[in-house]
């Protein structure tokens, strides 16, 4: 079995940034496995502007942003395989992949970085009743058809869900000459970025119907109409509010699901809120030597943060390999234990309260950590004029006013490493009213 220092599953922005960072730490035996025809992940189909404002201080398109990292990967001579699907991974960091040249292959990694990204929730996951004609697409599938294959899925469109992909596709389809009738959102707020609502809907006078859902889908062969209705606080349709829209296309932008089927196979600990692995401040999962970053860990809205997070994962994986942690031998200790320095005490738990849904990382091992700890999180509702507060044990160490916080936007706080000592038990992140 061939052995690599670091194997990276997924060649999207996360996988690429992780590879570059690991290489810069002096690791040479790296392999990126990507199932698509090119590196770059979902960015290849995001041909709109707005990427890289943080990382490169300029507005790039998705493919341009990805291109910068792909260039680095190529310059650094990091090996990668395309058209290569990873089928299995296990807790001993063995990877099974398949492609046309090598067939079915098994390789051994000293460290594994999970960077598989996420997929879109489908209609079935929502259990929307009605017929099942042609013309119902997830927004990302439509985006691929339009931007990469040059096909227009339809001409009269209703969009369910105001996630970013849906918003971007509302604009894209309009620019292609399609008529977008409405964007309906079940929640009383949008799940997308504010700037996308302005630039993709408002600028084109596309109505955003909050607290609305699809109650009927008509058409046996191709979609003929969808009926929207307003929903009450219980999110159930309110009778009498139905309105039918004739259309040939329904796009669904109803959420992204981290693609963790492979991760689950290893038995690693998962967070039910993010549907991603539970990681510590090193982005290590609870299986020694397996790291995770990008959308597979938790859904990001900005790729800059993906790159940043993935860079850290790559660096930490490199350090893990350099410390020459050997493989747990067959039958030896349980693999399910976080990577930890000898003599480290129990980890610091990061507690969420008052509107914070989750944090990444979920715990901190090293005390003090080598670097300040960046904690990313999302809130579960819209909050206006509230404060983000962070406590180390009982002591409040940070309180920051925010005019608005929404579930669609990821928030970040940084905890200084000096504040986390051997005595620290918990860090709490919460939202506080004025």
């Amino acid at each position, binding site marked *: 079995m061939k052995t690599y220092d670091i194997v990276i599953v997924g060649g999207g922005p996360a996988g690429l940034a992780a590879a570059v960072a690991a290489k810069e730490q002096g690791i040479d035996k790296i392999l990126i496995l990507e199932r698509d025809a090119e590196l770059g992940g979902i960015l290849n189909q995001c041909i709109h502007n707005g990427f890289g404002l943080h990382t490169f201080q300029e507005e790039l398109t998705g493919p341009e942003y990805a291109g910068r990292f792909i260039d680095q990967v190529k310059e650094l001579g990091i090996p990668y395989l395309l058209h290569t699907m990873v089928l299995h991974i296990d807790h001993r960091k063995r990877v099974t992949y*398949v492609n046309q040249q090598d067939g079915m292959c098994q390789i051994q990694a000293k460290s594994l970085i999970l960077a598989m990204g996420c997929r879109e929730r489908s209609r079935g996951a929502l259990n929307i009743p009605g017929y099942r004609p042609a013309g119902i697409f997830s927004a990302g599938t439509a985006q691929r*058809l339009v931007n990469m294959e*040059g*096909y227009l899925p339809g001409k009269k469109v209703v969009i369910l869900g105001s996630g970013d992909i849906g918003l971007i596709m509302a604009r894209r389809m309009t620019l292609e000459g399609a008529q977008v009738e409405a964007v309906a959102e079940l929640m009383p707020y949008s799940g997308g970025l504010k700037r996308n609502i302005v630039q993709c809907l408002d600028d084109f006078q596309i109505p955003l119907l909050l607290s609305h859902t699809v109650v009927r889908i008509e058409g046996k062969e191709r979609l003929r109409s969808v009926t929207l209705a307003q929903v009450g606080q219980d999110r159930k349709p309110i009778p009498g509010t139905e309105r039918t829209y004739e259309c040939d296309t329904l796009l669904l932008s109803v959420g992204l699901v981290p693609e963790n089927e492979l991760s689950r196979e290893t038995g690693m600990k998962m967070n039910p809120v993010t549907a991603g692995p539970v990681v510590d401040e090193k982005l290590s999962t609870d299986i020694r030597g397996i790291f995770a970053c990008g959308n597979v860990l938790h859904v990001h809205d900005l790729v800059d943060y993906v790159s940043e997070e993935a860079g850290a994962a790559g660096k930490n994986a490199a350090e893990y390999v350099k410390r020459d942690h050997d493989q747990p031998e067959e039958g030896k200790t349980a693999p399910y234990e976080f990577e930890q320095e000898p003599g480290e005490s129990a980890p610091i738990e990061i507690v969420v309260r008052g509107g914070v849904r989750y944090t990444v990382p979920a715990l901190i091992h090293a005390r003090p950590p080598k670097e300040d700890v960046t904690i990313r999180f999302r809130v579960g509702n819209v909050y206006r004029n509230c404060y983000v507060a962070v406590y180390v044990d009982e002591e409040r160490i940070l309180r920051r006013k925010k005019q608005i916080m929404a579930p669609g936007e990821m928030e970040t706080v940084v905890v200084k490493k000096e504040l986390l000592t051997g005595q620290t038990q918990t860090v709490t992140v919460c939202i506080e009213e004025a």
Partner: protein
Amino acid sequence: MFDVIIIGAGVTGAAAAWGLARFQGKVCVLEKAEDVCCGTSKANSGIVHAGFDAIPGTRKAYYNIEGSRMMEQLCKNLKVPYQRCGALVVCDDLNFSQGLEELYQKGIANGVEGLEIITDQKRLRELEPNISPGAAAALYAPTSAVVCPFELNLAMAEQAKQQGTEFYFNTEVQEIEAMEGGYRLETSRGRFESRYVVNAAGVYADYFHNMVSEKKIHITPRKGEYCLLDKGTGSHVFHTIFALPDKMGKGVLVTPTAHGNLLLGPTATDIENREGVGTTAEGLEKVMADSAHHVRDIPVRQVITSFAGLRAHEDGDDFIIGEPKDAPGFYDCAGIESPGLTSAPAIGKEAAEVIAKALCLKENPDFSELRKGQVHLSELTLEEQRELIRKDPAYGNIICRCETISEGEIRDALRSPLGAKSLDGVKRRTRAGMGRCQGGFCSPRVMELIARERGISQEEVTKAGGNSKVILAVTKEGTRE
């Protein structure tokens, strides 16, 4: 002039064609849809019923038992996924267990083997750990099984096709009238004539029957709605779990499918529209509520799709099989509601024997019981997979990530004797697009393969034939190319 025309390429029509393939004769199948298995045969529970539910002495009871006995070997021969997982009919209250007793007695009268009533709680929970805490007793039917309905329907049709049976798709039968020595059928694709007709038109079978016979029959579509859960959830239960049946049918069941998904449903609602396969909010709610009644902790968040099928319920509440007295040569397979899937091989075999005898058809020496079938990459051992990909790298190119389906398998499905023509056709043959992302990832790729293999443009690719085009135009840039 055909010897036999079969109306309908559902599992019943396909079984008749398969039965007739044992004989030498000129046979064709007329199907209004673009493919086999587009009616009720694609939307059912996929259970090979043991046969304890049917009233003794009815045709349903007879064909159910016969079909159930044939099914295991048939599925082996035809390479159709089949698992004899057994069934449990659970009852919450010992006071109602007389219902179980009645089923048990019916089953014994019908000749079902191995039936047993279990009241021992420990044994019940050993058999089925996730049965609801309220379950007090159960009827255990070890001969009950699950089968892949698409593959069964397809396999029988393919065997017939191999023996020269002609299939006319997109061909809707509109009128039938008797003529000298047979019947004349007017269709959307012209006139067909035949010595014999097999009426296997599902929920439309009464139309055709009533065109040739004075003894009228009447079919009501009885809708059943389902939710299907992600792969892997099938192990939530080991058996098909039924509640006690009521007058509308067997009630909502919870079952593993032949592919390891968990299936919940069906409901039972009489409707008027014979094309009314849309699901409803109330129906799906009922599926969820009723299934939670007999199985606990169903992982409902893993629902990947919902669908509905129509039972062809005839007023007389039984299958109508054979020739009406006033219409010799017109062989009805009407009112084929549940257990129609189970019964199909028995119905088809008998229809073929009766017709072959009437027409003095000779046996077909070339008929083979065995089907070569398709390669399924994910079912092979690592060594077999390696060998396969080495010989043909197309099997190393994974197109459907959720079900791990390769380009090679999709290509085979498009080139096979009754090749797929649409996304749904590929899906039913290979499972590409049937997984948790429901084709979000693979459908653009499958469309490419369909276009390539069938020599059409991607814009002509449909979801399920007819007017179900997937793409309606090219983009501005696309047209410039």
